[in-house]
Each structure stands twice: as structure tokens, then as C-alpha cells.
């Protein structure tokens, strides 16, 4: 188990370095000189060239690409991702204050998707090829197929505009803050994120449950006279969790992608909203910081999936 994890860890570290190189190369390809870009066009004159050259030398932009990359990477690893081109604030700080809302949205969204996926998946597995099974398949295909932003618009139309039950913008109401208010703002975005991600989970729960329900030990439990409820929940369900747990960990990045879109629609002040607005305003340093953060999150979820895989299933540990 130790050797397996060490190998996975080293692969992840290697991949991270490859990603930093790719991001650096991408940024280097952007048109325009980073210094000249910060000088208003009407103030560019014959003297600017010397000034730009001097600034380039100060910032090390005249050095070789490898040196520049190394410089950038060591700074980034020390938490120095540079400053926003728009408001001059440190990128680390900007990203830092956006992580909380995104984690909140993702956490509750994940919980909701599991609350949808587990009951439906288990029922569908128990009554294979029944109307309930087909219904669950349609729900899961629908959750995969209908774009999150369209679901969001429908939900806003119904629950914010028609019934006026829930707000559709922001994370809280500054005039009336509190736990209830926060929950009130969280309901719609988290529900939509949860529904959008329930489809793949449901399919995995169903197929994993089917495998377990067909296993010998389930027949034994039935033969001993255990109630159907006990057989499903205490025997089959617990074993079916093994593959599902890894699937949940590997799906965290997909959840993040859903959050990016939902944050945009609901003006949720998370990382995704920051990323999209930085993209629209060409704030490259923030985009790069976001890219590195995403890379770290994705690789950590992969690692989490590997760890869960070995911890939960003793058969893997023995290998």
C-alpha cells in the first residue's frame, strides 16, 4: 500500500510540474508586452522604449525563458502569484477569500447529489427493469444532459420570480445577515449543483449495488432469514460503497466545473465567478493563479481517490 501511494504521489507531483510548464508557456504566448500594456496608449512616446527596456531588466523579463520560468515557479510555490492587473491586490489573497464560498457550495451540492443518488440508485438496483428503474435512468440522463445554466434559469423563473421563495443572487443579504439568511441564499444554487451531479453517482450506485446484490453473501444473508431491509442496508449497501467512494473523489473536479457555471448565474462570490470575470477582463495573473489552484485541487482529489481506494478495501491493501 505504501509503495503504491508513493508512486501515485510522485506521478502527481510530476504532472503538476508539467502543468506549470504548460501554463507558463500559454501565458508567454499572450500578445503584447506586459510593461507596455500598463502604459496608457496616449502616453507611449519615443522615450518609452528605454523605460520599457529598463523595467524589463528590473523584472528579469530579458532573461532566458528557463530562468524566468524558474523564478516564477519558486515564487508561486512560496505563495507569491503576483498581483491582479485590475486592482493591484495580491492574487493569493483574492483567491483565498473566494475559496470558502466555493467549498460551501460544493460541499452542500455534493451532499444533495448523494441524497438524490443513493436512494434512487439502490431502489433502481433492487427493482431492475421496473418503471422505477427506467424512471431513475431518465432522471440521471436528464441531469447529465440538461445544461446547468438552463436549469438555473428555469429554477430562478419559478422559485425567485413566480413564488418569490428564494433569492437568486449573492451569498447573503447584508442588511439581514445570519445563518438562516445564508441557508436561504444557498438553497437554489446548491440544489441545482446537486441535481446536475447526481446522474453519474446514481449510475455508479446502481451498478455497484447490482454487483453486490448478486453476490453469494447476500444469498447467505437472505437464507439466514435476515429481513430484506437489513440485507440491503447492512450487507450489500456497505460493500457497494467501496467503488462509489472513489467515484465521488474522482468526480470532485466535475463538481467544481458545475460550481463555476452556477456561481456565474447566481452571482455567488466564489473562485469560479472570479475566474470568469478575470477572463472577461483579461486579468492574466488571476487566471494563472486560478489555473494552478485548480491543478492542485484536481491532483489532490485524485490522490484522495487513491487513498480511499486502499483504505476502504482491505483486498487492495494486501496486494
Amino acid at each position: 500500500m505504501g509503495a503504491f501511494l508513493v508512486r501515485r504521489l510522485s506521478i502527481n507531483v510530476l504532472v503538476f510540474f508539467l502543468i506549470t510548464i504548460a501554463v507558463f508557456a500559454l501565458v508567454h504566448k499572450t500578445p503584447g508586452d506586459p510593461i507596455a500594456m500598463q502604459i496608457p496608449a496616449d502616453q507611449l512616446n519615443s522615450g518609452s522604449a528605454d523605460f520599457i527596456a529598463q523595467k524589463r531588466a528590473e523584472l528579469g523579463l530579458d532573461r532566458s525563458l528557463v530562468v524566468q520560468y524558474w523564478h516564477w515557479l519558486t515564487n508561486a510555490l512560496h505563495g507569491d502569484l503576483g498581483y491582479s492587473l485590475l486592482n493591484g491586490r495580491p492574487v493569493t489573497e483574492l483567491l483565498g477569500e473566494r475559496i470558502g464560498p466555493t467549498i460551501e457550495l460544493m460541499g452542500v451540492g455534493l451532499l444533495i447529489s448523494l441524497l438524490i443518488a443513493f436512494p434512487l440508485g439502490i431502489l433502481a438496483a433492487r427493482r431492475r427493469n421496473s418503471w422505477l428503474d427506467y424512471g431513475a435512468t431518465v432522471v440521471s440522463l436528464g441531469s447529465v444532459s440538461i445544461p446547468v445554466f438552463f436549469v438555473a434559469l428555469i429554477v430562478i423563473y419559478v422559485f425567485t420570480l413566480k413564488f418569490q421563495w428564494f433569492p437568486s443572487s449573492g451569498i447573503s443579504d447584508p442588511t439581514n445577515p445570519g445563518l438562516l439568511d445564508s441557508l436561504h441564499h444557498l438553497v437554489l444554487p446548491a440544489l441545482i449543483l446537486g441535481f446536475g451531479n447526481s446522474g453519474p453517482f446514481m449510475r455508479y450506485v446502481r451498478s455497484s449495488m447490482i454487483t453486490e446484490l448478486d453476490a453469494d453473501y447476500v444469498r447467505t444473508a437472505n437464507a439466514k432469514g435476515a429481513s430484506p431491509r437489513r440485507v440491503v442496508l447492512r450487507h450489500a449497501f456497505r460493500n457497494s460503497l467501496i467503488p462509489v467512494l472513489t467515484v465521488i473523489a474522482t468526480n470532485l473536479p466535475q463538481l467544481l466545473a458545475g460550481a463555476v457555471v452556477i456561481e456565474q448565474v447566481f452571482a455567488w462570490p466564489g473562485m469560479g465567478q472570479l475566474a470568469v470575470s478575470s477572463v472577461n477582463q483579461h486579468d492574466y495573473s488571476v487566471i494563472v493563479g486560478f489555473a494552478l489552484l485548480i491543478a492542485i485541487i484536481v491532483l489532490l482529489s485524485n490522490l484522495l481517490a487513491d487513498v480511499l481506494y486502499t483504505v476502504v478495501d482491505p483486498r487492495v491493501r494486501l496486494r
Partner: protein
Amino acid sequence: MTTTTLAAAPAGRSPTAAALRRFRKHPAAVVSVLFIALVVLAAIFARPLSGHDPNAIDLLSARTGPSGDHLLGTDSTGRDVLSRLLFAGRISLGVGIASAVIAVVVGTLLGSIAGLLGGWVDGLVMRLADVFMSFPSLVVIVVVAGILGPSVLTMVIAIGLFQWPVCGRIVRGVTLSLREQEFVLASRATGAGPLWLMRKHIIPAALPPVSVVATLAVAQAIALEATLSFLGLGVQPPASSWGNMLTDAQSLTVIRSEPWLWLSPGIAVALTVLAVNFVGDGLRDAVDPRSAS
């Protein structure tokens, strides 16, 4: 594309005919094929069907609801929503198919190389597949579009590149099992090179499962294109796409009082993606009878 190969198969008890029979037993898939055919025809004949120029601005009749002249109403600059919807279909289907083709070509090449060569090449390709699979393509394209600027070509390539691993794994699996078969050994012994093996043995054997993942890839690509265009990072105005037609609907007033602006493109993308997914589902049952039971 898959449906045409199925339809062209000779009648009889060939595997293709059997698969076609199983496909027909999947009512949702059959209905979906008809629906997709309808969407494709509507996109091809967008100009005669719409009766309006999708980019013709008419400020005097801006934001009017559905009427006899504008069946689905007009948008904020008076452009005809129906004709924009039909022309957007071209882009959505085009992006979907083009990215799926990229995914299948790259996946087939890398998958068969991994399977045929084995060893460290195989290990490398499969690790690469893991990495590509683990990154959410939407977020990656947001970053790439942010740095390089949004463009349809970048989007198609990026979507395709992030979808190849599924196909690559299948082709690798097929190649590995074929490699040990006697007819392939015989073929190699008589001097068949890797390209010949790919063309004559691997691709025909991998075609049924690859057709399934290719169909699902088309669905995913259409949904991704819509999402990216919705965020303003995909198809740029004045060109219309189902996604960017919804971008204007991010204000509560539009959602409330001009539902024709966002309902029709939203329904179009949702139904199309759903239909393509149903076809993929039906194909899976058709080419792999075990999964249907």
C-alpha cells in the same frame, strides 16, 4: 454517422443486423434518432426555414413576443429568434461532431499504439489518459480561453483533446485482446505492419464500442459548447449559438418578461443533448447485449 452505417447494413443475421434489431427495441433511442434527424435538417435548411436574416437588426421591433412574422419573437436588437436558433444549430452540431471526431482519431491512434507496443509506451499513454480524464474540460477551457482569447477552433480542439481518453482506453483494450489472437499473429507473420493491423483488425473490432463513446462525446461536446458560449468564452456574437443566446437572459427582467428569449434555445440544447445521449444509450445496449439485460 453511426446510424447510417447501421442502416446500410445488409438484412439478415449479421451482427450489424442483430444490433440494429436490438436498437429498435429501445423506444427512446428510436424517437431520439428521428428527433436528431429533424434537428440536422433544420440546421441544414436554416436559411429557407427561417425567412429572416439571423443578424438583421431591427430596433423598431426589438423584444417583441412570438408573432406571425417572428414565430419565436425577437431579441434585444430586434433579430429574429427562430432564425438565430436555426443557425445556432449548425454551430452546435458542428462543434459537437468535430470535437468527437478529434477525440476518436486521437483516442484510436494513442490507444492502438499503447496496445500494440505495450511496455513503457503503454504505461505513459495510460497515465496521460488518467491525467486528461481527471481534469474538468470546462475549467481548462475557461483558463485557455482566458489566456489565448475565445475562439471556436480552440474550443473544438480543447473539447476533443479532453475526450480522447475514453476512446483510447477502449481501443487499447480491444488491441490487447486482439494481439494474442491467432489471425493477428498470422497477419503479423506474413509481414503486416502496425498501420495494416490498425486498418484491417483493430478499427473494425473497436468500431462498435467506439461508436457508443463517440455518440456520448458528441452530446457532451454540444453541452460544453453551450455552457462556454453562455459564459461568453465560446462562440462570439454576432454569430449565434444556443449557449450565447442565453447569455442575455442573465438578468431577472429578461427571465421574467421575455421568456421566449431563453426558453427556446435552452429547450433546443437540452433536447438535443438528451436525444444524443439516448441514442448512445441505445447503441450501448445494441452493440453489447450483455449490458442490456
